[in-house]
C-alpha cells in the first residue's frame, strides 16, 4: 500500500473539537503526525485589555467549558495573591467541592468519549448517564450545568445549605455505586484491554522531558499533582496523588477512573469538614483566621464509613427535588486595583493549569497568560503517534484528554 495522507479532523466524530492532525499512513501504520492548530483560537487573553479584572472571571471561565470552575479559581487565586486577600475558610472548602465536582464530570465525560473511541458505545452511554447526576448537583448548587460562575475575587458567590449538602451526599453515593459496577468493564474487560494496553506508550523519562501534565504524567509513573501544594482547601484534606506505572493508554484511563472515585471521597470529606462562616471576604484587607488542622486518618475513615448506604439508582422524570437555597449570600466588595505579578497553578482535570497575571494598578489587567494542560500534552502526543496503527489513533489522541479550546484560547 502506498503512503496516504489522512486528514484527521478538524471536523471528526471522535473528537468533539477541531484538532487537525495530518497523518501520513503507510499500511495503516502512522509514519508521521503534524498538528495544525488555530481552529478555536479566539485571542481571549487580549480581552483583558478591554474588560476589567472582575469581568475577566467570566471570560476565563469560558476558556474551556469543561473545567470552567478551575480556570476561574486559578485566576481568582492569582488576583487575590496580588491584592493580598485572605479568602474565608468556608469559601475555600466550597471552591474545593465545586472544583472536585468539575473534575468528576470531566473525567466521566472523558471515560465515555474514550470508550467511544474504541467503539464501545454502551459503555459511553453508561458513563454519561452517571455524569448527568453530577450535572444535576451542579445545576442545583450553582445555577448552571456547565459554566458555573461561582468564583469571585475574595470568595464564592453561592453557599450550600445543609439540605443541599445532604442531597449531594446521597447523589454521590448512588454515583459511586454505579461507577463501581463499571470498573470491571473499563479496567478488566478483555476487548477493552486489547485496545488500550500497550497503546500509546510514553515512557517515564519521555513524559517528564516532554513536559506532560496531569493524568498523562501520572499514568507514566510520576506522582506529581498540583493539589499537593494545598491550594484552596486541599492542604487540609490529606490529599495523595494517584499514580499508575503502565505508561500506556490503559494506565491513563485507570488514573482517571480512580481519580473520579477519589474525587467523590474528597467532596464528602470537604462537606463533612466544611466550617461555618462567611463565603466571601471584602477585598481590601486580610482576614484573621485560626490555623486549620489537616485531616487525620481516623477522621477520614469515620467519614467514609458513613456512606455505605444503598439507594435506588434510576432517574425519574419527576420534578427535581425542591432544595432549600441558602439564605442570602454576601457578594464580596472589591475595592482597589491589582498591581503586580503572580503565577498561580491549580490541578485541572487534564493536568496542571498555570496563570501568569500582571496588573498595572488600573482596572484592566496588563497581561493574563494561560498555560493549559493540553498545551503541555501535545508534544508528548506527537511523540506517541508515529508507529501506531490507524485504528489506535483515536485512542491515543483521546488518552491525553485533549481540550483544544483550552490549548488555543
Amino acid at each position: 500500500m502506498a503512503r496516504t495522507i489522512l486528514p484527521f479532523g478538524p471536523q471528526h466524530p471522535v473528537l468533539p473539537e477541531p484538532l487537525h492532525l495530518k497523518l501520513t499512513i503507510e499500511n495503516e501504520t502512522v509514519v508521521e503526525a503534524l498538528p495544525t492548530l488555530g481552529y478555536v483560537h479566539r485571542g481571549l487573553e487580549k480581552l483583558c485589555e478591554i474588560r476589567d479584572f472582575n469581568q475577566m472571571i467570566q471570560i476565563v471561565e469560558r476558556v474551556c467549558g469543561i473545567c470552567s470552575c478551575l480556570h476561574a479559581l486559578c485566576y481568582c487565586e492569582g488576583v487575590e495573591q496580588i491584592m493580598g486577600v485572605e479568602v474565608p475558610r468556608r469559601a475555600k472548602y466550597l471552591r474545593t467541592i465545586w472544583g472536585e465536582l468539575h473534575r468528576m464530570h470531566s473525567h466521566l465525560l472523558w471515560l465515555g468519549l474514550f470508550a467511544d473511541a474504541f467503539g464501545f458505545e454502551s459503555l459511553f452511554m453508561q458513563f454519561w448517564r452517571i455524569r448527568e447526576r453530577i450535572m444535576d448537583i451542579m445545576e442545583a448548587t450553582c445555577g448552571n450545568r456547565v459554566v458555573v460562575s461561582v468564583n469571585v475575587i475574595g470568595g464564592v458567590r453561592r453557599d450550600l445549605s445543609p439540605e443541599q449538602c445532604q442531597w449531594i451526599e446521597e447523589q454521590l453515593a448512588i454515583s459511586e455505586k454505579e461507577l463501581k459496577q463499571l470498573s470491571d468493564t473499563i479496567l478488566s474487560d478483555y476487548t477493552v484491554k486489547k485496545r488500550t494496553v500497550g497503546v500509546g506508550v510514553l515512557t517515564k523519562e519521555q513524559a517528564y522531558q516532554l513536559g506532560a501534565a496531569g493524568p498523562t504524567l501520572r499514568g507514566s509513573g510520576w506522582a506529581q499533582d498540583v493539589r499537593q501544594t494545598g491550594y484552596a482547601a486541599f492542604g487540609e484534606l490529606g490529599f495523595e496523588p494517584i499514580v499508575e506505572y503502565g505508561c500506556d493508554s490503559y494506565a491513563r484511563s485507570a488514573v482517571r477512573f480512580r481519580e473520579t472515585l477519589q474525587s467523590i471521597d474528597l467532596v464528602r470529606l470537604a462537606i463533612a469538614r466544611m466550617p461555618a462562616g462567611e463565603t466571601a471576604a471584602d477585598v481590601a484587607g486580610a482576614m484573621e483566621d485560626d490555623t486549620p488542622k489537616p485531616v487525620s486518618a481516623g477522621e477520614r475513615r469515620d467519614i467514609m464509613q458513613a456512606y455505605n448506604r444503598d439507594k435506588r439508582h434510576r432517574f425519574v422524570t419527576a420534578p427535581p427535588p425542591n432544595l432549600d437555597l441558602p439564605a442570602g449570600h454576601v457578594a464580596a466588595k472589591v475595592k482597589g486595583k491589582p498591581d503586580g505579578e503572580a503565577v498561580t497553578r491549580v490541578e485541572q482535570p487534564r493536568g496542571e493549569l498555570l496563570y501568569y497575571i500582571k496588573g498595572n494598578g488600573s482596572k484592566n489587567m496588563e497581561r493574563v497568560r494561560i498555560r493549559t494542560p493540553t498545551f503541555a500534552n501535545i508534544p508528548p502526543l506527537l511523540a506517541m503517534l508515529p508507529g501506531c496503527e490507524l485504528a489506535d489513533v483515536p485512542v491515543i489522541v483521546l488518552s491525553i484528554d485533549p481540550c483544544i479550546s483550552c490549548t488555543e484560547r
Partner: protein
Amino acid sequence: MFGNMINKGRIKSPWVVHFDCGSCNGCDIEVLACLTPIYDIERFGIINVGNPKHADVLLVTGTVNQRNKHVLKNIYDQMPGPKAVIAIGACGCTGGVFREAYNVVGGVDKVIPVDVYVPGCPARPEAIIDGVVAALEKVKTLLGMTA
C-alpha cells in the same frame, strides 16, 4: 403517496452533523449529552452522523474565527439539500463574550445562513432539542405540510 412518504421521512429522520467552530466545549458537551440516555434524541430519529454528506441538519457551536470560517463554509456546501443550520449558544448566535476578541469573526450567521438560534451559555440539552424541533417546524412549512 411516495412524495408524502419522503416528506414524512424528512420530518422523522433529521440526521445531524455537529461542527465545533471554536466554542469553549460547553455547548459541545451539551450536544453530546443530548445523545446519551437521559435525553436520547434518537427518539426523534436523530443520529450524529459526523459526515456532512449524510447530514440534514448542521449544529454549529461557538464563534467563527478567521481560520475555521473556511471549514464551516466547506462543510455547509458539502451537505446535500434540503438542509437546516442551527447555531447553538451565545457564541454561535452572536459571538458571545468573545465577539470583541481579535481573531473572532462573530456569529455563525456571518458565514452561512442560520435557521434557528439557540441561546444560552451553554445551551441546555432541552434547549438544543427545542432548537431541532423548531428547525423541523421550519422545514415543515417549507415543504408545505400542515402540522
